[in-house]
């Protein structure tokens, strides 16, 4: 067991950047007042200015006006808000039909299910073997009754990037609103609401080395949207609650620290890991699209072995990774994403996700591949599955 831990689960959350913490600190100890109107006292006015400045940075990044961006407690709240806010606003006026992809992350998926229980009809859009949404099915599914289409920008587990420009165009033509969960692409892949016909965008700070507990929702001007967090007039009267000013400042700081060079570096590391694993470890399957993929994501199934055993062995060697195995999750459900792309149980249980971040270096990537090769070999030697195949190979 080694002391130095190598963290490769950056899609789950990331290490905070010190520079972000530094930017946040004054808003805990000096400018801790509530953001007041410009007619109140100095600390409150300063807090207001900090919030406005952070909002300006976030909005600009998305090609939006500041009034189109509201801060939330994170991606989960943003997606809940998008689906339920639109449903509450248009459910009675326009219709009760919503479309989401089968492989959405849980905030979208379970919000859709919650609305289903309240009488909405939900279409769960198929995806192909690489996770790309079926756009023909999307075209056919949108009707007069359809109020919202929610399709993620990239997948949380397999990293597949959707063609949201095409999806947005279809939605626009057919008169449905379009929400995209960009938690895993924000600042890693460009997303400009000025160019892409998207009405709502979920973003989060903690996946880009920002603080936990802060996210945002872009709401295009004029989008029908009902407020459901009551108790104040904050965030343009769209979400009540004391503003998280240190969080907002940290979020803006984190956004500015992501560079194109960093994304290029992560992508090179990603490709090296994928290429090495597929070449060096037999009976492996890449999950997700080879090219249309976020720069930080690797997801590979190791056949004949179970993921929790792989992650535990890796943890003993100091590596933190994630798996789509049922045994790893608290719910004891295998990955709905792997099933969604047509994978069977064995592929889901044997899937390992490696997600990279700012603090990973290429030596760690190589060490992870080496460790995986050893662990998988060891576990295969005790597995009752895949023996015929191995004998054939020998």
């Amino acid at each position, binding site marked *: *067991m080694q002391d130095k831990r190598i963290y490769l689960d950056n899609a789950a959350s990331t290490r905070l950047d010190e520079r972000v913490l530094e930017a946040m600190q004054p808003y805990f100890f000096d400018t801790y007042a509530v953001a007041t109107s410009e007619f109140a006292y100095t600390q409150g006015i300063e807090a207001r200015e900090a919030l406005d400045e952070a909002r300006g940075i976030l909005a600009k990044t998305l090609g939006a006006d500041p009034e189109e961006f509201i801060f939330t407690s994170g991606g989960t709240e943003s997606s809940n808000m998008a689906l339920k806010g639109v449903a509450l606003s248009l459910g009675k006026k326009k219709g009760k039909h919503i479309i989401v992809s089968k492989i959405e992350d849980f905030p979208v998926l379970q919000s859709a299910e919650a609305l289903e229980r309240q009488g909405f009809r939900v279409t769960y859009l198929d995806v192909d073997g690489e996770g790309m949404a079926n756009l023909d099915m999307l075209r056919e599914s949108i009707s007069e009754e359809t109020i919202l289409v929610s399709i993620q920008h990239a997948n949380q587990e397999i990293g597949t990037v959707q063609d949201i420009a095409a999806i947005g165009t279809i939605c626009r033509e057919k008169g449905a609103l379009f929400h995209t969960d960009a938690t895993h692409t924000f600042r890693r892949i460009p997303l400009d609401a000025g160019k892409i016909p998207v009405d709502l965008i979920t973003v989060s700070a903690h996946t880009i080395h920002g603080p936990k507990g802060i996210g945002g929702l872009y709401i295009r001007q004029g989008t029908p949207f009902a407020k459901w967090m009551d108790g104040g007039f904050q965030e343009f009267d769209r979400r009540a609650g004391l503003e998280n000013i240190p969080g907002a400042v940290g979020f803006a700081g984190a956004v500015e620290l992501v560079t194109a060079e960093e994304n290029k570096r992560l992508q090179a590391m990603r490709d090296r890991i994928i290429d090495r694993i597929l070449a060096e470890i037999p009976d492996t399957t890449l999950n997700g699209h080879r090219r249309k993929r976020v720069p930080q994501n690797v997801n590979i199934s190791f056949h*004949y*072995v*179970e993921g*929790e*055993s792989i992650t*535990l*062995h890796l*943890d*003993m060697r100091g590596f933190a990774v994630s798996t789509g*195995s*049922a*045994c*790893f999750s*608290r719910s*004891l459900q*295998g990955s709905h994403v792997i099933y969604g792309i047509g994978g*069977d*149980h*064995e592929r889901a*249980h044997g899937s390992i996700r490696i997600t990279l971040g700012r603090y990973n270096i290429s030596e760690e990537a190589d060490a992870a591949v080496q460790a995986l090769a050893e662990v998988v070999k060891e576990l295969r*030697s*005790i*597995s*009752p*599955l895949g*023996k015929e195949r191995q004998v054939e190979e020998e």
Partner: protein
Amino acid sequence: MKSPYSETVLEHFRHPHNVGKIDNPDGKATEGSPACGDMVAVYIKVDPDTKNISDIKFESYGCASNIATGSIITELAKGKTLDEAKKITWQEASDALGGLPKIKTHCSVLAIEGLRAAIQNYEERHGLVKEKTATTIEVIRKRLKKVMNPISGLDLVRTNLVKDIVLKDGRVRVIIDLPESHQFAPAIKEEVMEKIEPLWDVKEVKIDFTG
């Protein structure tokens, strides 16, 4: 390192005892399937005179608690008589491992079931079944539930691959809803034979495919 598993579990997980296959075992069984996330195969060698388990090995496709339980039950069963080994409980295995997380009960019970099924397999093959109840269609169906459909990872019955079961004068005919040329047909056939043939009053097993 932080883990919900005890030191003993981790030790058995890292270095499992009695791992592997026994060639020409006297009794063997496979429990679970990739669909339920865990699978364990148990092989035993039995001393014909003393009825002691002289050798035992296991293979596991599963999580840490499955692997560790497989390791500990093979340790507990080795050298015991079949009757003693049959009585090993999940609780004993769990205690010997210093406890198992509650949510992992299912994965670890599988290993116990594997041991018992391997013993049962031996007894059936050697005419040692004491309480002889007549085989019925239901008994056969229950056994077929333990045969995995490799296409889906779920069992044959649940995936509607068993089209019909005919039982007459100790002769069993199982009709599988797959063409005989299917890539998994031989594997399914072999597994079904293995499960049904040892039944004490079954004289003949025939597997037919629908195409």
